[in-house]
């Protein structure tokens, strides 16, 4: 579904991502680990096509189509949806209005908001004064309205209280498995996702297929996400860098 080949990206004259290869197959959920400042969010923003993230070499393919020439909204229309780590304040635009526009009127904002306890937020300006956890829920609400085929989730659980993590985790699981009746259908009809996490808490809710470790703009390692998480927890990222240097 998503295939990234030898991608090098520059931001503000500085190379942030170098020679990066990554793949997320249809119906798969892959996890992206890495220390602060590694370039994880930058990768998601590059995939989405935000300005300022300049592809120097390599390419990003989505369902076989190269994304380079596509604008942000064209990528969204192809089925890519993003939950941003730090979305901008949209003063003057109420969440209700954005949900309506995003879902093209398919969805009744009230009902959708109820599942995320966001009803009181519908008449507030998007992100303005939202707490950290409220931002996460509002981003998810917008994604639910958008209904993408491919989810880019940037730290969906960070800053979220323990009760809400359950709520968010379950909703993400529900969105990723929308339209599939049995596990066997997952790789055929399921949605795909790339999820950034530091704590791995989201792994309690979604079935992850593959993990990647990103350090200093490079993929250091990939493998079973739970095993990678254990490794990071016990030995930290330093070890990954050392290991990569050896190879």
């Amino acid at each position, binding site marked *: 579904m998503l295939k990234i080949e030898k991608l090098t990206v520059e931001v503000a004259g500085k190379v942030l991502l170098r020679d990066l290869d990554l793949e997320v197959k249809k119906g798969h959920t892959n996890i992206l680990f890495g220390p602060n400042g590694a370039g994880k969010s930058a990768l998601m923003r590059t995939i989405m096509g935000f300005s300022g993230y300049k592809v120097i070499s390599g390419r990003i393919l989505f369902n076989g189509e190269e994304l380079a020439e596509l604008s942000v909204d064209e990528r*969204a229309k192809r089925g890519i949806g993003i939950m941003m780590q730090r979305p901008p304040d949209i003063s003057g635009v109420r969440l209700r209005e954005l949900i309506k*526009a*995003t879902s093209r009127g398919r969805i009744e904002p009230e009902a959708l908001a109820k599942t995320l306890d966001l009803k009181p937020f519908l008449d507030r300006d998007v992100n303005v004064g939202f707490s950290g956890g409220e931002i996460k829920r509002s981003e998810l609400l917008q994604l639910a309205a958008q209904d993408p085929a491919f989810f880019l989730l940037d730290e969906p659980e960070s800053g979220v209280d323990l009760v809400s993590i359950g709520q968010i985790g379950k909703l993400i699981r529900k969105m990723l498995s929308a339209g599939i009746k049995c596990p066997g259908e997952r790789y055929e009809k399921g949605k795909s996702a790339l999820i950034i996490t530091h704590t791995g808490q989201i792994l309690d809710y979604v079935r992850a297929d593959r993990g990647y470790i990103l350090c200093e703009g490079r993929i250091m390692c990939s493998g079973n996400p739970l095993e990678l998480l254990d490794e990071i927890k016990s030995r930290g990222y330093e070890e990954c860098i050392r290991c990569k240097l050896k190879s």
Partner: protein
Amino acid sequence: MQAEELNLKKRAEKALQKRARYGEDFDLKSFGAAPKFAKPIKDLRELDPESKKTLLQVGIVPDAKARLGSLIITDNALAHTSLSDKSLELLSTQQALKKHPWLKAYAWKLVPVDTDKYSAKSYLEAADGYFIRVPAGKKASFPLQTCLLLRSEKVSQTLHNIVFVEEGAQLDLITGCTVEKGVEEGLHLGISEIYIKKGASLNFTMIHNWNKQIGVRPRTVVCVEEGGSFVSNYICLKPVRSVQSYPTVRLEGKGAVTRLSTIAIAYPGSELDLGSRAVFNAPGTRAELISRTITTGGKIIARGEMLGWAKGAKGHLECRGLILSESGSQRAIPILEANVEDIELTHEAAVGKLARAQVEYLMARGLSEEEAVGMLVRGFLDVGIRAIPKKLRREIEDTITKTALGM
């Protein structure tokens, strides 16, 4: 009295050549006098669809249930009045001057006749307009609406409006100023004197909808007594040649408050010189002046002025200007002046383009660039008019969306 009138007349005659302090100088001689007669409109519901649309675009609805009363002036003459609550007064200023001898003591007291050539001309033509009086303690359940319609080509319309909201009374007033379809060139000169008595409040919404060669020169002064409140929303979102207005609110009584919002768009060829001024003349008075303007190629000057003369006064001025094209210009001129201690006046001004990050955020949700910009622009303006009472605001937001932004 006679002597005073003579004196006013003399002052006005002397000011007939007096240029206004700001804005393009219009040559009054190149405009004819607007007709002093009007074809009466019996019932707004019987207007032809085109006229109805013209009125709707400035917030004037034909439905009598949604409004307590309506008054329409076409060119320089009264064309319609209707009023369902007779405890209020809604008539033309000239009618009111005949009916109430006391009114003379208030007319031309807030706006000096010799402010500039436009006020002078309005005085000398004995300009008519609307007169509204809400009796003490009366809280009007629905808004009143007034419409000032320019119908003739290349004339100067002169108007004089006087509003009284008596002690403890409350009113929502909508005034729509516009031109009949097809009228291309003209001048609209409007004097407004508004008295808000002790504990009274007026929520005033004014929508302008002009044409490319129309010049607009309103002259407005509001006097707010103790505990009174004046909330104003000025909306101008269609092409116009030049609007220059700088209404002044005098906060004369303890604890008087005001909030003035301006939202406007300047198209190529438009010059909008818009401002508002609050004068704090009594302790504990408050003011908030907000301006949200957009240029798509025209010139905008957003002025704001707060003059503090009394202790415990507090005021905030916020000017935001968006530039949506290569050619337009935005100039923000905030002025703060404190003349006593224990006073707090602040301002915030920003001009520039839309933040790319905001546009792309909405695009990432599948909105096209055009839709994203439209949503942000609407939101930008919307913040400027949030003080309008909820029900009315929805109506006005609708007007903005459908007729002004064409979305």
